[in-house]
């Protein structure tokens, strides 16, 4: 067990406990923040430094089947960005899809201590967990793809509401997942079963079922709320990336009225359209989407900011990746998982001179700046879709530094600059406290992680200590100290120790007889045996079950 620590005289940013930049001491023992420690505790002088809870990434793609395909796909990315080993840390490679060890170390070196892999089919759950086990330092979990699950569709179609909920709970257990994820619900049946078509309307009939995306979304969100999951449902809406998709996004939120729900990378879903062109050009509907989110406390979102430069589009939304392929994708991966998911991967580059890319960049920033509740509109680039997690410090600077933002604006496609309210009017700058909310306190609260995202007594001792540079990018890209589970991992910007983080997962109770509903489907239609499907505890290693409200 690591020695006790006393962090002295740092400026604390702990929004969950109402502390904003006040000098406080923090005591750490046995991996937790405690009220006091003995005199023998190691002392860290944080005078003049900024102390925050460790960063929490609510949505990124860092481990599992699609990530590994994207990794294998791009040796050219890796050779330009190597990650050498040290005496006690493993080597790896970077690029937009780093190797697992590099992922863990690089998150940690940036002051992040928790990250959630955002989409994996249950059939690939073991793979996700094996990779997460090889992702050092950070705590981690994953969202399991449920929005195109064929058996759930059958139960829903037959009106077997309770069994639907039981099956959802069973699946979360079987996969050792953290939350149910919906990606373009209804699209898989069209993509795989109707010659690569897509579903475009919330009320369109799903191929082969007497169902619509709306029915699927509402049913899963309702069931997840009833199960009392710490993070009820994580939705990637229909029509991602398409002009005019803001109406689908609004309809999705309206359909979930009164239910706790999280819409992810909402930037990609906030596009209007100008009719009459050959291909309808997108416009910004950030204001309309913001208004809805601002006034509906049941809804939360992460932005999914686009950052200029290399990205990798990797998604369970296979039709989307196929659409992107026409914009310069020279190599493309599609991967279908039986009864559970699709997947598309395409190397990509966002360029500031391209109208659509510049507009996407602006819409993301508009969403941040129009948000009235930072606790519910939190930070993400949908790594590596909008940009790598390595670009987070630059994004923080864009939010905190208006002059820097305006400099960037000047380089953009002028048609975008003409139209975006960023050029005149949206002059807001985020404070350090607000950054602390959107990058740690907010995501932790939305995830229902009571011990994370704050520095009160009893919290996990995941702590980041930054130098207070005026250049916020410089400040956030290399904290001076990072403490994980009470262990000093980074000191004076250098790794001092390796560390194995925990897997976070849920285990909602379910009625055992649901297995007799699921089993026959498996025996008939899956290619692996039911008995070999559920993931057992050997894949968890260090782990923590996060309780539902009923547990």
């Amino acid at each position, binding site marked *: 067990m690591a020695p006790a620590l006393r962090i002295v005289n740092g400026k604390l940013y702990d929004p969950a406990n109402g502390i904003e930049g006040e000098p406080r001491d923090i005591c750490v023992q046995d991996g937790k923040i405690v009220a006091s420690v003995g005199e023998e505790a190691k002392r860290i002088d944080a005078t003049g430094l900024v102390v925050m809870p460790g960063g929490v990434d609510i949505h990124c793609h860092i*481990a599992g*089947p699609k*990530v*590994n395909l994207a*990794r*294998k*796909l*791009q*040796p050219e990315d*890796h*050779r330009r960005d*190597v*990650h*050498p*080993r*040290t*005496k*006690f*840390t*493993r*080597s*790896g*490679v970077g*690029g937009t*899809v*780093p*190797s*697992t*060890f590099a992922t863990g170390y690089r998150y940690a070196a940036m002051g992040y201590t928790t990250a959630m892999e955002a989409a994996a089919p249950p*059939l*690939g759950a*073991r*793979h996700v967990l*094996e*990779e997460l086990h*090889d992702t050092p330092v950070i705590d981690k979990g994953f969202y399991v793809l449920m929005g195109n699950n*064929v058996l759930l569709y059958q139960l829903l179609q037959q009106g077997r509401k309770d069994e639907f909920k039981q099956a959802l709970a069973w699946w979360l257990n079987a996969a050792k997942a953290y939350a149910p994820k919906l990606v373009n619900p209804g699209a898989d049946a069209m*993509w*795989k*079963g109707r*010659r*690569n078509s897509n579903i475009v309307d919330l009320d369109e009939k799903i191929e082969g079922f007497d169902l619509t995306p709306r029915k699927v979304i509402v049913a899963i969100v309702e069931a997840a709320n009833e199960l009392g999951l710490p993070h009820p449902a994580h939705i990637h809406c229909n029509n991602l990336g398409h002009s005019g998709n803001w109406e689908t996004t609004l309809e999705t939120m309206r359909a979930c009225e009164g239910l706790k729900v999280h819409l992810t990378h909402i930037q990609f879903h906030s596009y209007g359209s100008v009719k009459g062109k050959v291909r309808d050009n997108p416009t910004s509907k950030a204001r309309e989407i913001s208004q809805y989110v601002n006034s509906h406390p049941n809804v939360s979102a992460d932005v999914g900011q686009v950052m200029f430069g290399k990205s990798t589009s990797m998604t369970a939304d296979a039709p989307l990746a196929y659409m992107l392929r026409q914009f310069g994708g020279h*190599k*493309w*991966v*599609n*991967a*279908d*998982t*039986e*009864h559970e998911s699709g997947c598309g*991967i395409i190397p990509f580059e966002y360029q500031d001179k391209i109208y659509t890319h510049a507009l996407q960049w602006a819409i993301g920033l508009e969403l941040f700046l129009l948000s009235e509740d930072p606790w519910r509109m939190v930070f993400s680039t949908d790594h590596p879709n909008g940009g790598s997690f390595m670009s987070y410090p630059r994004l923080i600077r864009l939010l905190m530094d208006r002059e820097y933002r305006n400099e960037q604006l000047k380089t953009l496609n002028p048609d975008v600059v003409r139209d975006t309210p960023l050029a005149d009017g949206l002059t807001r700058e985020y404070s350090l406290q607000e950054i602390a909310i959107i990058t740690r306190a907010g995501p932790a609260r939305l995830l229902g992680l009571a011990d994370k995202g704050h520095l009160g007594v009893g919290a996990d001792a995941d702590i980041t200590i930054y130098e207070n540079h005026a250049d916020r990018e410089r400040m956030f890209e290399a904290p001076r100290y990072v403490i994980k589970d009470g262990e000093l991992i980074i000191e004076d910007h250098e790794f001092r120790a390796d560390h194995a983080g925990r897997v976070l997962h849920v285990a909602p109770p379910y009625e055992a007889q649901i297995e007799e509903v699921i089993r026959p489907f498996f025996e008939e*239609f*899956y*290619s*692996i*045996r039911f*008995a*070999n499907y559920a993931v057992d505890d*050997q894949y968890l290693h260090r782990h923590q079950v996060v309780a539902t409200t009923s547990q």
Partner: protein
Amino acid sequence: MSDNIRIVKDATCTFCGCVCDDMDLTVDVDEKRIIKADNACILGKAWFREHGHEERPAALIGGNEASLDDAIEEAAQILVNARFPIIYGLSDTTCEAQRVAVGIADMIGGTLDTTTSVCHGPSGIAFEAVGESTSTLGELKNRADLIVFWGGNPAESHPRLFSRYTVTCKGMYIPRGRTDRTIVLVDVRRTPSAPVADIFIQVKPRRDFEVLWALRALVKGRKIDPSIEQTTGVALATLEDLAGRMKSCRYGALLFGMGLTMTRGRHFNSGAILALASDLNAFTHFVAKPVRGHGNVTGADNVVSWQTGFPFAVNFAKGYPRFNPGEFTTVDTLARGEADAAMIIAADPASNFPQAAIERMKQIPVIVLDPKESHTSRLARVAFTTATYGINVAGTVYRMDDVPITLRPALESPYPSDEQILRRLRTRLRELLGGNRVPDKMSWPVPAAAA
């Protein structure tokens, strides 16, 4: 047969890349034998039935029986004192063992390569160039109405690929099974797989690339000269018919074997077939899939990729992973005489490598981990007898379609697993080196114990 019989249901066969997980094994506990393997194919039945632990020492040094401790020490000294140590094999062991092996290569600054480099390595290279439209085997079972097998003979190499996953099985949208599917076989000779196919297309040896490229053109509506028949042995009308079927099916699949990847053209062939499948997605849903041989070669690809960013042929000498097939592939590092020590895990390169590579193995210290005596173990300086994965050892394997499956071992073994040996070796190496070996400009740090 004794009375002490145990049944293991839903066990997994790791003999080939199909990794069938529906084995019902009857185990004679006293005799320490598997006497029956229900659901297994002819290869799987033999795999289970012929397994019996041999009366072989757990470790040999220089062909003489040695203690495990001494053998670990000897192996550690070999690896620590080598300037160009290579680690090879890994396709017939668990992911858990593979993960430790890659860690050892990283720690010592060695070169890591798997049997992928001599089977579907070209497909891995082609994947990096063009990507891949692919699917799990269950999608083929449930949806595929047209399946084209190319350069493989599954009837003899992967018997249950036909019955369990692709040809005769019924599926959700293929209710009548075989009747609802069209099966095509493309190969240079009429193999025992041919009777399974509705259409057999015989290609002149070494002309696969030309056939694939012509199909790509036809799919895109381009004209092909009838002289294609002289070049490839396949009539234009046959190709046009196949292109038409591929465009008009609802869910098509191209499954290809080493008959494509290891003949003239290699990664060009793999690239052509992957590109053909991708092209077809402009018309219908189409996937492609290399048919993998070894039980966990797909796991090796996955583990090496997630730990290093590259699927095989990875060198760690500079302190970080570098990928270069041809430079860091095992046949090449051996045949050029660069490798000065080798650790071979669950593979037998001395039985199938080119002579120059085998000769090099005879000159350098070789460490072998294998359940059985092999050509490689006979020339090894240190040979460990290990338990067999899937039969004695639990853990994870990845089916050829990247689906991870947990093993249910049926029998205990007196021998340690690959993972156990490798973990002990790693611990000893860490002691000797004082942690990972970090390249210090041009010189190697001297190992603590050797100094």
